[in-house]
C-alpha cells in the first residue's frame, strides 16, 4: 500500500483541527509522526522523542516536570509494536519520572499516565493494563476506540467528533492503535463495530484458523491428523483420539474397558495408560518428546508439533511422574 499522495490539501492544516490532520492516514509508520499534530512545534516534537528514549530513574512519587516524554517511547515501539501503542507522540504528554499509583491517576491532564523507568516494557505493559487490558493481554495490534466502546455492556453512541489518536479526548482512555485512525472510517455503524469488537476479543485464539498435527500410534498401519483448534481441553482431545484409534486398540482392551470415565481432569490419559497401556505424547518445538497433560492447554497447542500414542512400556522413561500417579491411583 503506497502512501496516499494527493492529500496535499490537508497541508494547509496549519489552522485546521487536530482531527482533520489525523484524517490523513500514513500507511508507513515512519511518516506518521511528522504528519499529525500540526499544533505542536516540530522541533519540540523531535526533541521530545530524543528525551523520551532516555531512561531515567527517580524516587517514587517524585515528578520531574521539566521532562516531558511521550507516553509511548520510540524504542518501545520497535519491540512492542504489537501492543497497539501509538507511533506518534501524543497531545497528552506527561512527566516521566517514576511515580506512585495515585500520581499516575492525577497526571497533568487528569488522565491515566504511566510510570517510566528502566524496565520500560514491563512497566508500560503493567501500566497499560490500567487503561486497556485487552490490548496488552492479547498482545495484538487491535485496539481502536470502537473496540473499547464495545467492551461496555451498554454503549450509547460514543463521544462524537473526537480525535481517536488523543486519549484525553476519549472518555474511555484506551491505548490508541499504532496507526492513525479516522473518525467514522471505515463507515460501519456503531452496533456492528461494537459487536465485532467483542467477537474478535473472544475469538482471538481462533484467528489463525486451524492447527492440524499428525497423530501416530505405535503399531497402527497409518497416521491420522487432528485440528488442535477444535478442542478446548485435554479431556476432549483424548476422547477424540480414543475414538479415532479404537480400531487399533481393540485387541488390547483391559478388563475394565476403555469406557471408564471418572470425570477427573487429565485422568482420561491415565485411563488410557491404566487400561490399555498407551500413553499420549507430543513433540514440541524443540524437538523433544513430552508427556501430554503437564502444561496448560493454551501452551500445549502453541508448542505441539505432532502427537504420538506410545505403548506404555516405552513411555516409562518419558513419564516417570505418570507412572507414579498410576501407582498412587491403583
Amino acid at each position: 500500500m503506497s502512501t496516499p499522495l494527493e492529500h496535499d490539501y490537508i497541508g494547509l492544516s496549519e489552522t485546521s483541527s487536530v482531527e482533520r490532520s489525523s484524517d490523513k492516514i500514513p500507511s508507513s509508520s515512519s511518516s506518521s509522526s511528522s504528519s499529525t499534530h500540526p499544533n505542536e512545534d516540530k522541533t519540540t516534537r523531535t526533541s521530545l522523542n530524543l528525551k523520551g528514549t532516555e531512561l531515567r530513574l527517580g524516587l517514587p512519587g517524585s515528578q520531574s516536570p521539566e521532562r516531558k516524554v511521550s507516553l509511548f517511547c520510540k524504542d518501545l515501539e520497535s519491540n512492542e509494536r504489537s501492543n497497539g501503542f501509538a507511533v506518534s507522540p501524543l497531545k497528552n504528554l506527561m512527566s516521566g519520572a517514576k511515580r506512585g499509583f495515585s500520581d499516575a491517576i492525577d497526571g497533568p491532564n487528569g488522565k491515566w499516565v504511566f510510570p517510566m523507568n528502566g524496565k520500560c516494557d514491563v512497566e508500560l505493559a503493567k501500566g497499560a493494563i490500567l487503561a486497556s487490558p485487552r490490548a496488552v493481554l492479547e498482545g495484538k495490534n487491535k485496539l481502536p476506540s470502537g473496540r473499547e466502546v464495545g467492551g461496555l455492556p451498554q454503549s450509547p453512541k460514543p463521544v462524537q467528533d473526537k480525535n481517536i489518536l488523543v486519549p484525553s479526548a476519549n472518555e474511555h482512555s484506551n491505548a490508541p492503535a499504532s496507526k492513525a485512525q479516522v473518525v467514522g472510517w471505515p463507515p460501519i455503524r456503531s452496533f456492528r463495530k461494537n459487536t465485532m469488537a467483542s467477537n474478535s476479543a473472544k475469538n482471538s485464539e481462533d484467528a489463525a484458523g486451524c492447527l492440524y498435527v499428525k497423530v501416530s500410534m505405535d503399531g497402527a498401519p497409518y497416521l491420522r491428523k487432528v485440528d488442535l483448534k477444535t478442542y478446548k481441553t485435554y479431556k476432549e482431545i483424548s476422547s477424540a483420539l480414543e475414538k479415532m484409534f479404537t480400531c487399533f486398540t481393540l485387541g488390547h482392551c483391559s478388563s475394565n474397558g476403555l469406557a471408564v470415565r471418572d470425570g477427573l481432569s487429565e485422568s482420561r490419559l491415565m485411563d488410557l495408560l491404566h487400561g490399555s497401556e498407551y500413553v499420549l505424547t507430543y513433540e514440541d518445538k524443540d524437538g523433544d518428546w513430552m508427556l501430554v497433560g503437564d502444561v496448560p492447554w493454551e501452551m500445549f497447542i502453541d508448542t505441539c508439533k505432532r502427537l504420538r500414542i506410545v505403548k506404555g512400556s516405552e513411555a516409562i522413561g518419558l513419564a516417570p511422574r505418570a507412572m507414579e500417579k498410576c501407582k498412587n491411583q491403583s
Partner: protein
Amino acid sequence: MEPSELKRSKDSPNSDESTRRSSFPDEVLERVLSLLKSHRDRSSVSLVCKDWYNAERWSRTHVFIGNCYSVSPEIVARRFPKIRSVTLKGKPRFSDFNLVPENWGADIHAWLVVFAAKYPFLEELRLKRMAISDESLEFLAVSFPNFKALSLLSCDGFSTNGLAAIATHCKNLTELDIQENGIDDKGGSWLSCFPESFTSLEVLNFANLSSDINFDALERLVGRCKSMRVLKLNRSVSLEQLQRLLVNAPQLAELGTGSFSEELTFRQYVELESALSNCKNMHTLSGLWDAKGIYLPALYPVCTHLTFLNLSYAALRSDELAKLLAHCPRLKRLWVLDTVEDKGLEAVGLNCPLLEELRVFPADPFDEEIIHGVTEAGFVAVSFGCPRLHYVLYFCRQMTNAAVATIVQNCPDFTHFRLCIMNPGQPDYITNEPMDEAFGAVVKTCTKLQRLSVSGRLTDLTFEYIGRYAKNLETLSVAFAGSSDWGMQCVMGGCSKLRKLEIRDCPFGNAALLSGLEKYESMRSLWMSACNVTMNGCRLLAREMPRLNVEVMKEDGSDDSQADKVYVYRSIAGPRRDAPPSVLTL
C-alpha cells in the same frame, strides 16, 4: 362525508367548469388514488391539477418524510388529514459513523404532539436516525389507542424503559422492530410487560439488545401470538431455547436466531433440526451469533427455500460457508463477514445463481495488520456466477481497475454499487494507478445505477465520468477523493437526478459548493465535512438560496473561517429553531 363536502365546495363556484371537466366524480378519483402506494407516484399525481391535488391529499394514508426538517408537523397535518402511517428520517447519514454531534436534533417529540392532536388514529411510526426519549415513547404508547407498528432504526436517546411502556400500553401492537439503535439497555424486563391477554404481535425484533430477557415470558408470548411471522432474537437466547420457540411457531417467515454456539447433545441437535425443518414458510434467516460450523447442518432443511441469509454476525470460514451455500439454491440476498474470504465468495458464485444482493462486512475493520478478508478476486468470482447481482456493499483492502471492469461487464444491472476500499486513498494495488477507471467502468456500463459509494485513490476524472454517465444516479457518497473543485462541479452539473450527496475529506471548496446553487432545491440534502469550504462560502449560499437551510457544525479549536461540517437541505419550514449551539444556521 368529508369528500362530498369537498365536492360541494368545489362545484358551486365553478359550475361552468364542472361541465367542461370530465365527468369523473371525486369519489371515484379518490378511490383510484387510494390504491396508489408509492409516495413518488402520489407526489406526481398531486401536481397534475388542483382537483387531483385535493383528491390525493384526502386519500393518502401513509406519508414518507425523508428529512424531518424539510417540513413541519403542522404543515404535514394541514395537508394530509387522514394519515395513519408515518415514516420519518432525521439525522444525516454520516451520524451513523459519529460525524454528527450527539445533541444535533431530529427529536420526534414535537411531531408526536401534533400527531396526537391531528392523527389520533395513527397506527404506524417508522423512524430512522431520529432522537427519541423514553418520555416520547411513553407519550406515544398512551396517545394512540390504535397504534400497531413501531420501527426504530439507528435512533438514539431511549432505553428499554421506553420499550416497556410500549409493551404495556399498546394493546393492538402488531410490530415492534428495534434495530441498531443507540439504546440504553437497562435489562430485559420490558419483554415481560406484554400482558398475558396480548396476542396480536406479528413482528418482534430485539436482536440488537444485549440483555437477557425472561425466556418464559418470551415463550408464552410467542406461543399465544399465532400470527407471528417475524421473530428476531438476541444473543442471550440459546439454541435449546430457540428449539422450544420454534416448536410453537412453525409459521415463522423470518427468523433471527440467538446464539448459535452452545454445546448440544445429539438429541437436542436432532430436535433443533426437526423444529427448523417444520418451518416451511421461512424465507429469511439471520442472527447466528457465534455460529459454530458443526451446527450449521441443522439449517439445511430451511436453506432450500431461503431467499435472504444474513450471516453478518457469524464469523464463518470459507469451507463452512461453502457447505452451507450448497443447500441454498434460491438465495437472492446474502450478507456475510469477510472471514469467509475469497474462497467463500467463490462458493457464492458457484451455488447461488439467483443472487441479487451481496453485502460483505469486515470482521476486523480497524486492524490494519490483518491480511485476511476479501480481495478483488472474491468479488470477481461472484460476478461470474451471479449475473443478476444488482446490489453490492463490499468492504475490502485491495482492488484493481481491471477487476471492477470485469465485474460490471458480468453484472451490468447494478442499481447500488457501494465499494469501500478500507485504506483511504489507496490506488490500484497492481498498477498503482488511481481507481478512476474502475468507477468509470461502473457508470458507463451500469446505466440503471441509483446509488454509488466510491473509495480508493480518485482524481477529478472519476467525477467527470460520474457527471457524464451516471444519469440515473440519486445518491453519491464520496470520501478522501478528488483533486480539485472541478470534480464536484462535474457531479453537480451532470447528475440530473441527484438527490443526496455526502462528501467527507475531499479538496472541494467554495467554488464547488456554489456550483450547485440551482441544484440543491431539487435535492434532499448535501453534506460536506472536512473539505475546503469556508464560512463565507456558506453565507453566500444561504443568501442566494433562501429556501435552503444552510447549517454549519463547528468543532472545538477549529479556525473561525473554516466551515468544518456543512449540511444543506431544502425546507418549506424555514430554519429550524431547535439547533444546538454548535450548529449555526446561516
